[in-house]
């Protein structure tokens, strides 16, 4: 897949001296969905704002579809749609007019069929003549997405799209992103909901303190860094781990009913067979065996913590 967005050594310092981006580089392929994960203040919104032209980069370069965002800003920006984090809409304007406005602003001529299609896709067609102030919060978010899609962009930025959004709308939004992928639209979303990245992203980037700590295929990332846990539930309560099992890296649950074994899925041998044999040999009776995969959240927390420790 060709690269649609290329960011090279992007730096942004504000007048206050605060360095929001410290040399970010990333290539994003056409048609992929990439989630940028990071804690508040990590630089996610600054990154998006700089690519979209809302803030000026201090140094570095960004190109969209091969067009530089500074020297070829018209062509670059007309390829981008942006859904901002905050709901910012003219309260007295009508839904359809505000979408038409966005389309015109991005240099596209009036095309009612295109606007109708977008509004229908976002379940806004029935509300097209409503004033924006009459809409619910969820509906307003849909309007923001409709505005961002009004000029048929190739790259869509969603800045925290599902913050404060109910479950149903969140599912709807994920569906919309999936649909857009079908049309070949590249989606870059920032989030601090790990489940969002886990649910829809192809790749995950972790950003903290203005730096990208890692960008990796989501499945690979989870497989590579994924720790698994094996819970061995017993029929009798234990006070301590039996000496026969001391050779294993085992933990005993607080209530004493479960032995917890952590292992690495990428390892050649997980040691499960031997462990279970030894457990049986030591005379313990098994009630149940459960395995758990660590989530992206665990990976994310460990990465960010490591970064903070390195910085300290």
């Amino acid at each position: 897949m060709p690269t649609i967005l290329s960011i090279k050594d992007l730096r942004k310092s504000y007048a206050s001296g605060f360095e929001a981006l410290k040399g970010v580089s990333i290539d994003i392929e056409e048609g992929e969905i990439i989630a940028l994960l990071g804690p508040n203040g990590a630089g996610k919104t600054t990154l998006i704002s700089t690519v979209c032209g809302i803030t000026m980069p201090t140094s570095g370069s960004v190109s969209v579809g091969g067009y530089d965002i500074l020297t070829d800003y018209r062509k670059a920006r007309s390829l981008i749609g942006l859904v901002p984090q905050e709901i910012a809409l003219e309260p007295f304007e009508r839904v359809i007019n505000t979408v038409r406005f966005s389309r015109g602003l991005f240099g596209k001529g009036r095309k009612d069929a295109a606007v109708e299609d977008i509004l229908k896709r976002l379940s806004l067609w029935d509300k097209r003549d409503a004033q924006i102030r009459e809409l619910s919060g969820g509906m307003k978010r849909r309007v923001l997405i409709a505005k961002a899609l009004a000029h048929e962009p190739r790259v869509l930025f969603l800045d925290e799209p599902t913050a404060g959004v109910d479950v149903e709308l969140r599912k709807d939004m994920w569906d919309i992103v999936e649909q857009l992928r079908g049309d070949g639209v590249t989606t870059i979303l920032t989030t601090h909901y790990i489940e969002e990245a886990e649910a829809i992203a192809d790749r995950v980037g972790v950003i903290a303190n203005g730096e990208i700590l890692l960008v990796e295929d989501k499945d690979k990332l989870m497989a590579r860094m994924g720790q698994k846990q094996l819970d061995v539930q017993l029929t009798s309560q234990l006070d301590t781990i039996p000496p026969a099992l001391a050779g294993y890296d085992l933990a005993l649950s607080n209530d004493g009913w479960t032995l917890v074994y952590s292992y690495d899925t990428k390892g050649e041998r997980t040691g499960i067979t031997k462990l279970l044999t030894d457990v049986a040999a030591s005379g313990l009776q098994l009630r149940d065996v459960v395995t758990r995969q660590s989530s992206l959240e665990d990976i994310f927390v460990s990465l960010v913590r490591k970064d903070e420790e390195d910085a300290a």
Partner: protein
Amino acid sequence: MNWSAIRAIYVFEMDRFFRTLAQSLISPVLSTSLYFVVFGAAIGSRIDEVEGVSYGAFIVPGLIMLTVMTQAISNASFGIYFPKFIGTIYELLSAPINFLEIVMGYVGAAATKSMFIGIIILITSFFFVDIQIAHPLAMITFLVLTCISFALFGFIIGIWAGNFEQLQLVPLLIVTPLVFLGGSFYSISMLPPVWQTISMFNPVVYLISGFRWAFFGVADVPITMSLLAIGGFTTLCLGTVWWIFKTGWRIRQ
């Protein structure tokens, strides 16, 4: 040039105007009528003709200027300040447009609105006084230039303003006094000599004088001076807007 964007901004801004058409029009028509009743009929009946023109007719150009200037400023400043205030400015900044196109959209709409109101006042005044326009072309030129230059000025205020108080500050503390003291309701020649000299430092004097000349052929200052003044003010505003465009002042960090 992204003409489609200029049109989109223009149409969007004009929509706001038409949405509130009643208050956009009723208020200037009502206040103009009140001025005519108070100054034209009540006080004016006791004032002799000013430079060969009845007092009621004499104040018409000043009244139009007064309203057009304040309307152009308030429309343009609000037009660009409001997106900053509610956050929709993100869309303007991320769109494939340059600052000149943003200015053309907002200033064009604000100038059109104030022009519209100016013409409504002129029409209203026909119901109260008998006026002839000696130089229609010059009248239109002055009106258009004033609408554009004050809309540009308003745009600059809207960019500068950090809150609603600041948005009101310049129009209230500077523009209104200058317009009132700029000969809207009197001829500069009616003032004591000292105040005549001081008035010459008020740029609005030149605009009102020129506009009045277009109506009645009489003026406080030579018409070329008036043209230079409005030309100079427009250039100054354009220069400031160009500087804002170059530096991204108060818009783009």
